[in-house]
Each structure stands twice: as structure tokens, then as C-alpha cells.
């Protein structure tokens, strides 16, 4: 698994894709940071997080679109699944590789924290940690969805579109739930990643949300192993 992780991380940084994704993320975040936060003299970075989380909807599909499609396209998937490594290790290794790039991207926001302190801000640290943890967990879910989408097809663009569609749906679940209300809203809330995130970001550290995110990620990674396994068996 470690070997797969290492190989995939290398692959990311040997190609321009990771740089472009991180650069794009940093560019948009910086625009929000400079003109949204600093210009209004807000010192609490949580304000920024809730504005920039939408960027992940675009960035994560790009990050994960080639993670499994490439193997199928190059025919290396057969080599992988017939190797002594278990399918779940392959999936986990690949997920962790994509998540590592996500972490690097995420780490770029620490620059903002440093700037906040330089500019005389004293943010509430516990709330900030809540915001960071929430951002990471939402990121993990998004990456897992991306990995799942890329297991479904051998075309990178199709994979990106599938995961983008799923993420878009997740983004509009809350407004839809608010609109319809009642029981439907409660059912939709089961898939609402962002309302839980807003709670965390607003300072409610809800352990059930953490469990929710981790199990959400686990389920999508599990589904990915099923897709690959199914293909292995149906190919004979």
C-alpha cells in the first residue's frame, strides 16, 4: 500500500496537474482572503473557510479524475489487481495519495494564519481548529467521491464530470432541504456534508459529525473496491 501511495504521489508531482490545482486553489482563496477578510478586518479565518469550501467542488474532481482511470486506460489495472496486494490496499493507497496532495493544498492556507497574526489579529483558536478539522474531513469525503467516480470509467473527463455532478448535488442539498422542509428535508440532511461543516466551522465540535464524515469516506472507498472487484470477476 505504501508503495502504491508513494508511486501515486510521485506521479502527481511529476505532472503539472497537482501544481495547477494547488495554484488555482491558492489563487481563489487569496482573492477571498484579501478582499473578503482582510479588507473587512476580520481576524477569524473561519469566515474564509466557509467561503472557499465551494472551491473543492471544482478542484477535487480534477485532483482525482486520473487516479484509477489511468490504470485502466494503460492496462496496468490488470497488473495491479493480480498482484499480491489486496484491492482495498490499492484503493486506500490511491485515496491517500490524492488526499496527500489535498493536504499540501490545504497547508497553503497556513500562510493566511501567519498574515492574520502579523496584522494584529487574535483569532479564537479552538473555533479555528474546528474549522480546520471540518475542512479536512469534507476534503476527505470529496476525494473519496472522486476516487469512486474514477473507478467507474476509463475516461478521465467522464470521471471528473461524474464526481463534479455528485459534489454539485451535495452542494445544493441544503437549499433544497430548506425549500421542501418536513420529512424529505430530514432524509436529504443525511447526505448533507455542508450543514455539518457549517456547525463545525461555527464552533460546535460535534463528534457525531466526525463519525459521519469518516463513515461517509469509508463507504465510498468500500464502494470503489466493490466496483474494481466486480470488474475482476466479470472479466474472469
Amino acid at each position, binding site marked *: 500500500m505504501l508503495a502504491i501511495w508513494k508511486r501515486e504521489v510521485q506521479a502527481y508531482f511529476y505532472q503539472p496537474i497537482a*501544481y495547477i490545482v494547488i*495554484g488555482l486553489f*491558492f489563487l481563489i482563496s487569496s482573492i477571498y482572503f484579501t478582499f473578503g477578510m482582510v479588507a473587512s478586518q476580520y481576524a477569524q479565518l473561519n469566515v474564509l473557510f466557509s467561503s472557499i469550501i465551494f472551491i473543492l467542488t471544482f478542484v477535487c474532481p480534477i485532483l482525482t479524475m486520473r487516479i484509477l482511470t489511468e490504470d485502466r486506460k494503460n492496462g496496468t489495472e490488470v497488473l495491479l489487481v493480480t498482484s499480491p496486494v489486496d484491492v482495498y490496499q490499492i484503493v486506500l493507497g490511491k485515496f491517500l495519495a490524492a488526499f496527500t496532495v489535498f493536504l499540501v493544498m490545504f497547508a497553503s492556507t497556513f500562510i493566511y494564519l501567519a498574515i492574520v497574526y502579523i496584522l*494584529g489579529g487574535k483569532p479564537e483558536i*479552538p473555533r479555528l481548529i474546528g474549522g480546520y478539522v471540518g475542512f479536512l474531513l469534507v476534503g476527505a469525503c470529496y476525494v473519496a467521491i472522486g476516487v469512486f467516480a474514477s473507478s467507474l470509467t476509463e475516461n478521465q473527463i467522464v470521471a471528473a464530470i461524474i464526481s463534479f455532478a455528485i459534489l454539485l448535488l451535495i452542494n445544493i442539498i441544503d437549499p433544497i432541504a430548506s425549500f421542501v422542509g418536513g420529512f424529505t428535508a430530514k432524509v436529504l440532511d443525511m447526505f448533507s456534508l455542508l450543514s455539518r461543516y457549517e456547525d463545525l466551522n461555527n464552533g460546535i465540535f460535534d463528534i457525531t459529525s466526525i463519525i459521519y464524515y469518516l463513515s461517509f469516506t469509508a463507504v465510498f472507498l468500500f464502494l470503489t473496491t466493490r466496483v474494481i472487484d466486480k470488474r475482476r470477476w466479470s472479466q474472469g
Partner: protein
Amino acid sequence: MDMKDRNNGKKKNRKFSINKRSLRFGSYSFVLTVIVIASAIILNAIVGATKIREKLKIDLTSNKLYSITDKTLEVLKSLNEKVEIIGLFDESKMGDSQYAQVIEFVKQYETNSDYIDVKYVDPDKNPGYIQNELDPEGILGVEKYDFVVRSSKRSKVLSTYDIFDVSFSSSTYSYQVTGLNAEYAFTGAIRYVTSDNIPVIYYTEGHGEDDVKDDYSELVSSLELNGYRVEKINLASVDKIPDDASIILFVNPQRDLSDAELDKLLYYMENGGNTVFLFSPANTKLANFEEFLSRYNVSLGYDVIFEMAANKAFYGQPYRFIPTVESNSINSVLEPDKFTMPLAYAQSIQVLKNEKDWITVTPLLSTSSEAVGKSLFEGVEDKNGPFYVGVAGENNGYNDTSKTIVIGNAYFVSDDGMSVYDTGKKFLVNAINWMQDSDADIYIPVKEYTTPRLTKVTQQTLTILFIGLIIVVPLIIMGAGVFVWLRRRHL
């Protein structure tokens, strides 16, 4: 031929065996998938159950915005009867609005006490719920987005103004929510509705007052529905005002208080007692009453208001008019813009220019600037408006806050006076309810929405950040990508 058959047979067999194998695998895989997803859902459902979930929450905000304090926990522990908290809206539609915080907050009451039940009823989907269930008399003034806290004894309505701290911002010229007052509101309401000591309103006799039980029966029943008991008292014949007196009510007194009565009233006031005065115009000087009212910076006008603004007065009867209901935290429940309450034959209430930090006077009712106050004493000139015809006073100069309400008319809450418009009792009951709030000996400060600020931001800072963060750093990152790509292209 034989060979062919055999080959065919072989082929068929192999195909069959693959199907069987993949079928077996397929159903195994399907079952496994179902089990995994189901266990994830069950796990989340278990920890997501309200009681468990609330215990697993940690409040990260520095001012503990989402936590109830020990004071509330004490109140909840001492509960021994059911209390319902009913939110009058669809809670699943509140999304990220500030009500979402209140919904979160109220859950803690339910988690910490078996006696508290929280539910939400959308009045749009259940038309008639407010009228039939919560407020059959239309006295509480329950509206959508309010909360109703109720026990078997009585109910209390909490509006937006009770739950949030709202301040006027001079920079944006608008009202802004600056803090959460939910704990004070809900905990106070729970104490109020469960209190065994039913507050008593004593109405006085002995000064030519109207008979409240006979002529003001509608008002009395409204007060009783709001959890008060209404009793008669003769100040001259009691040693002191009873401890259970929540309010002393004077309805249209014609003669002055004796000195002894004034002393009893002052003693009562200095210990946090509340009073309500309904003074219809009279040409008898009420010196001791005025002495008492001066403790709240209020005095009587001894006049009759003639409202000369055509849109305010009844045609041809300028002494019958519609006063302006002032917008403030006391009147907010009434929706002052739409509230119509005619007064007939009212006197002005004056605010003395004796400003003290511990005395607050809040106007409740006023006239237009065209109104004229015709004096009831000979030789005294008429005065020009605007006038107040109703005020609320607070005196914080003693141990407990003492409140008073002084209205320049009594008829508007009499059974006769309310035969056309019955808004008078709503107005007065609302004002009386306001007097009860600070009686609670429990005080939970407003939780301000604090936002830490950056202190060293200049125009130059923004320029530097713009160049550094938005241009230079992204260019470096993406440049590195192009560099790697160019180098590896030739490998």
C-alpha cells in the same frame, strides 16, 4: 459430428460455470455492500440520536455561545412538571439562518431534562394551531417564528426581540443582531410558567376608583389567562402591601392617596414593587400620586388631549383619537405599525427633566405634534403637542428594579371601551408582562457575537497582499508545474 457436439458441450459447460461463479460472487458482493452501507447508517443513526448527540458536542466558541450555563442547569434540575417549548416554524427550513443557532441551543434544554419537550409546528401548514391550541383568546399575541413556552399552568411567548440582542447600527442605519439572548429568555420563561407562586395583581379601592371586577371583566380574564390572579386591596386598611403583590393597579382614582398610603407604596416600590396607573383626566390635584410618580420622573398633565391631525382623530370628535404606539422593546410584540387602539378623553403624561442614570422612561403612546392639551384648571394656558399619553418607567436606584406604567386614560380597557376595539387589553397585558421579566432573580448576560478584528490593515497592506498572494505565489506554484512538465517531457 461427435467431436463438434462434445466441443459444444464443453463450451456450454464453461459458460455455465462462469455464470454460476459470477452470480455467486455477485450476490456475495451485493450482500456485503448492503451490510456495509447499513452498518454505516445504523452507526450514524445511533450516535445521531438527539440525547447522545448533544452529549458528544463540544462548544469551541470563546463565549460559549451554544452552551447552557450552570444557572439554567439548576433551573432544569428543579423541574418537576412537563414544560413544552414550541417553535412556530418549520425547523427544517431554517438552514443557516440565525434561528438555526436557537434550534441548536434549545436542544440542550431537552437533553438536560426529561421534563422538557421541544417541538416545532409550522402555522402555515397547521392553520388554526395558534388560535385553537396556543392562544384561543388572542391575548398572547403568538405569531409565526415565535416560541411558546408552556406548562399546565400558563404560557409565555418569546419573540425575536426576546431571543436575540438587537442593536441599531449608526453606520448602516439598520437594526442588527449583535448577540444571542436565548438562554435568558428560555430559562426565564421556564421559571415563569412553572412557578408555583402565581403573581397577584391587586387593584385598589378607596379613592373613587372604577370597580375592576365589574366594569373591566374582559381585562381581568385576560390577566388570569396570562397567569395572574386579580384581587382587590384597600391600602388604608393593610399594614403593608402583601409580599405576593406582583403589581398594584390603580384604575381611574378620583381622590389622592393619604400620606400613610403613600409611605406604604413607596416602601413597596423601593423593594422592587411594580405599579400600573390608569388616570383619566380629572381636575383634582393628586399631589401624593405625583410624589410617587416623580420617582420615575413622570407627572400628570391635568388636561384633555384634542388631536387636531385629521388622520389621527375621529371626525368631529378630536378628543377621540388613535395614539401612535411607539416602537420599542416593550411594544414590539404588538407590531406598533399596525396596532390600532383608540383613546377617548385622555390626559397627557409628562416626563420630568430630572434625568438620573437609574431612572429610565420609555414612551409607549404619543400624539401628533398638532395635538392640543386643554388644561382642566382655569387660567392655565393650553399646550401644544406632541404629548405622551402613556409611558413606562423604571427605577433602578434601590435593591430591585421597580417598574411603573402610567396611561392617561382608563376607559380604553373597560368593557364599554373595548366593545368596538378590544386592542386595549392586549396593549395593557403586554405592558404588564414586560414588568414581570426583570422580576426573575436570575440574570444571564447576552452572549455577544464577537468577531476578532485585524488591527493593522492599511491600504498598503492590501496592495502587498494583492501582489504577493494573488499574483506572485500562484504564478510560482503554477510555474513550477510547467517547469516539471517541460523537463519530464524530454525524459
